[in-house]
């Protein structure tokens, strides 16, 4: 369902120098796969995630979704795809602190231009319930524990019923117990809800549990 063809990402450092964060990436991810991306710090894992999730564009190469090349899409088309098709979970949670838990979760639906076939409010309540956050719905994120914040972030990622869930070190800021809970949720979403999940992680136990793991080194795929 996702196909990366000859992806390069270069950053301009100054006038004469560029830094190549991704080199010649070829990658295909099938529907309902659970994939782990591993690699040392600076190897380009986040950069790759952002490109897969249409948050960033490659300097060169093609990202296709369902065989549709995205490189010719303009900002509003890309944003629409990102909105409907991808859910992001970040290491730093990235919740908006002056919105309540409920408002954070429903935020992607606010930006949706398509007529949803379900009521996003009901869906938000469902997700709150599912992740044990019902009594926290009027809280502001900075009053929540890290584990709770990450569950809010997952609920937000799911509000649009995306096909693809991208988690960039989702347990990186959590203790092992809470990290375990989050990983179980991701597993469950993959198994029960049939989501395609890609997780970036340093954690060997996670990558070992994943069916597929991709190792990056210096912007290149080392093993697949």
């Amino acid at each position: 369902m996702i196909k990366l063809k000859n992806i390069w990402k270069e950053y301009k450092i100054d006038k004469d120098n560029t830094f190549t964060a991704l080199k010649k990436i070829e990658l295909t991810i099938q529907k309902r796969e659970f994939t782990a991306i591993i690699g040392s710090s600076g190897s380009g894992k986040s950069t790759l995630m952002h490109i897969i999730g249409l948050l960033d564009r490659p300097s060169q190469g093609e990202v296709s979704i369902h065989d549709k090349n995205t490189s010719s899409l303009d900002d509003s088309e890309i944003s629409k795809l990102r909105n409907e098709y991808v859910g992001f979970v970040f290491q730093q949670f990235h919740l908006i602190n002056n919105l309540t838990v409920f408002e954070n979760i429903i935020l992607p639906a606010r930006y949706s231009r398509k007529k949803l076939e379900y009521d996003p409010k009901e869906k938000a309540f469902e997700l709150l319930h599912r992740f044990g956050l019902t009594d926290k719905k009027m809280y502001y994120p900075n009053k929540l524990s890290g584990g709770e914040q990450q569950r809010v972030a997952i609920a937000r990622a799911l509000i649009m019923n995306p096909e693809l869930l991208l988690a960039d070190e989702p347990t990186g800021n959590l203790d092992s117990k809470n990290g375990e809970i989050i990983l179980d949720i991701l597993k469950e979403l993959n198994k029960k809800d049939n989501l395609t999940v890609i997780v970036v992680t340093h954690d060997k136990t996670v990558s070992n549990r994943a069916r597929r793991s991709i190792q990056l080194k210096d912007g290149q795929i080392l093993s697949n």
Partner: protein
Amino acid sequence: MNYFNFILQSAYDDLRRNKIRTFLTSLGILIGVAAVVLILAFGLGLKVFITSQFQGLGTNLIFVLPGRVLSQGGGGFRPGAGTLGGIRFDEKDVLSLKRIEEIEYVVPYSVKTVQVQSKGKSEIADIRGTTEDDSVINNAEMDQGVFFARKDVEKKSKIAVLGQTIAEKLFESSELGLGKTIRVENHRLKVIGILKKKGDLSHNADSSIFIPYTSAFVFNQDKKFFDIHIQLRDYKEIEKVKEKIKQTLLKRYKEDDFSVIEQTEILDTIGSILNAVSLLLVALGAISLIVGGVGIMNIMYVSVTERRKEIGIRRAVGATSQDILWHFLVESVLLSLFGGLIGLGLAFIIVFFIQKFFPAYIDLNSIMLALGVSSLIGIVFGVFPAKKAADLSPIDAIRYE
């Protein structure tokens, strides 16, 4: 919640979260809008004032007033300056002025503010003692009854002609007043006439009571007049006659004790002063609006920087760069409009109090202009920061801490 409500709500929430900042930022627009609306209000009032002056008064009038009203050399008009402290004219002045051949009417006025009683009602009014010629030079139109005649002046008749407003105040309705008796300081006066409404603001005719000046001497025991109005046979001779009047009065008074001015002169000077003041206010208003706009722009830039990460998050969950543009643009328009509304409110309050002394009106055009201008400023000064926010790359924005 539809898209429009969502954008509006987000902007509103952000402004509400930073109440003090919102208020201070909108202050420039507030002052600017208030100033502009007030200028328009005064402009309208001035128009009404001048029109009423020309309608209410006869033409070709020269006023003789105590004190220095116009400063030397045709300079500015100082309203009320010196008019209270100066001399008082008397019947001898009236007689000597009547001897100037180009003059047709010489009409003296005594003025006293008194408590007037009718059956069960008590009001404050100006008693103006004058001659029957007042009705001629001021083109007095009667609503009911008649103006008093020369013989009433000679016989010191205890009669009165009421302005429309005071008649309405003293009697349930002005029609009931005719033939009734009013009491002023233990003197009874019979109402023989009621004037039509004039809207004459300078002489306050609508709320004045006119009686023969001879009868008014019971209220002014020094038998003096406050001012004298003069009508010419031929307006072309006005400069010459003014000089003759001055020479006549200089035999008895010092130069600084009185002023001889034309009606149009007063209007001209009032007009030019108000124009100058308006210009000043327009400049102040415009500067304030621009400064206010720059203030908004500044704060919006700060806000874009502060909320960079939030912008990144919104982009990550699917906001288009257009959505981000709207967020910030709507916020700056709301901010500016908020200032505009408060400024408008302030102008309404000021006009409400000032109307007691000077006519000023806020019409629909001023309201629309105020709101239009403040929205426009919000757009013009908000669009650059909003563009900056919209153009942020999502990834750079979300990485920002």
